[in-house]
């Protein structure tokens, strides 16, 4: 069996997409790991729906302050140049197109870039949180996720069967086996995990993948 990349490596690959000066909002789970892997010399301004811009590392144990959290409820360390704002302004930034990149988890992504990430139909109720705002508002939406669900079902699908977060919003999908970009002509397979070929990835993907001319191994 082929090796799948660990969560940290998915986050590393996503971190490569972040450019100097970008304003970035990281979702729960794998996305939240990305900030650890941004190369030095790049200044990234991290934004959180809790009402903070330019946060840095998490607070050390014993230094936690419940007036200083990110949207995952993690305690932040005070950072030079950090600023605070209320929720209407926090989402004005998102909806107004001031976030360059958001990295989100997903339950399903369709071949058109539709995103489903807020409700399992089996549960019948879910938390929408800020996901719809981010999916619609950020200039670039990157999905970071495992390629298959725990049930073994593909998560890159022809049509989302789960409730949508937003149609046609995802531009890049980074998983534990592949990097796929969403283009007008369809899903372009750009990179694969070491040892994985087009067919291996296709076997775990519902819609047809178009191999990139320069299809290569995932680079970090």
């Amino acid at each position: 069996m082929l090796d799948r990349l660990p969560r940290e490596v998915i986050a590393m690959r996503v971190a490569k997409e972040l450019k100097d000066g970008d304003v970035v909002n990281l979702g729960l789970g794998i996305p939240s790991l990305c900030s650890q892997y941004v190369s030095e010399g790049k200044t990234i301004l991290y934004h959180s729906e809790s009402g903070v811009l330019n946060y840095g590392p998490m607070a050390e144990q014993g230094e936690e302050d419940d007036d200083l959290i990110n949207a995952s409820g993690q305690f932040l360390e005070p950072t030079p140049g950090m600023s605070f704002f209320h929720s209407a302004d926090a989402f004005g930034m998102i909806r107004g197109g001031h976030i360059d990149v958001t990295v989100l988890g997903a339950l399903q992504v369709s071949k058109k870039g539709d995103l489903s990430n807020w409700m399992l139909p089996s549960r019948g109720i879910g938390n929408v949180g800020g996901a719809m705002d981010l999916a619609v508002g950020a200039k670039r939406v990157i999905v970071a996720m495992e390629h298959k669900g725990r049930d073994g079902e593909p998560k890159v699908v022809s049509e989302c069967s789960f409730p949508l977060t937003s149609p046609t919003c995802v531009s890049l999908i980074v998983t534990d086996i592949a990097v796929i970009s969403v283009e007008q002509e369809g899903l372009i397979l750009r990179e694969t995990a070491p040892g994985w070929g087009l067919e291996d990835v296709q076997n775990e993907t519902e819609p047809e993948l178009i191999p990139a001319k320069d299809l290569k191994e995932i680079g970090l």
Partner: protein
Amino acid sequence: MGKVFSSFDEAVADIFDSAVIMVSGFGGTGGTAQNLIVALRDHGALNLTIISNTAGLASLMGFGTLPGHTAVDCGLLIDNDQVGKLIASYPVSPSPSKVNSFESHFREGKIGLELVPQGTLAERIRAGGAGIPAFFTPTGVGTQLAEGKEVREFDGRRHILETALKADFALIKAHKADTLGNLSYKGTSQNFGAVMVRSSGISIVEVDEIVSPGQIESHLINTPALFVDRLVKI
């Protein structure tokens, strides 16, 4: 113009059954009016509509709560069967295996839910305070949360019409107040409170400290006094 109340109980005494109440806080204890929520539980008003980002994540799972602390949030009012309807973006536990009282009440049909994207929730509350009855937003277009809503294109992009939210009362936590009603918050704890204070008929604010006018410097005031009706010192 005495805005300072001497007890939490007194400050919530006139909250009536079926009132619409905004409750501040992002989900953790920061910015959550824990003492006012306890007072409202003791007061016992029923069939409340609660507008809040979550149904209480701090009390459920320690979200944004300091280690070793026991959190109070609007989950307490739901636990106590005082809530008939919730307007929120994050009403249930993130894990299906952990069921909060909102989710069990919801499945029993005892509580209604209006699920709202978090940014739309914040903007609807802001609109309520700013005299804007409705606005168009791209958030939610093409999803089940847009069902039944008017759709209109602007610049070739679809948007839906969302309406303002107002409340009879708001229960807010701030850091400091002066006796005029000016407020300052700490760090990320202004979140929903700094917006809700504008859109509620009567805003009730618990603070760590109440000082004289001038003791919060002008440039440190986050919420101007005109939005604040009642103050209680913790």
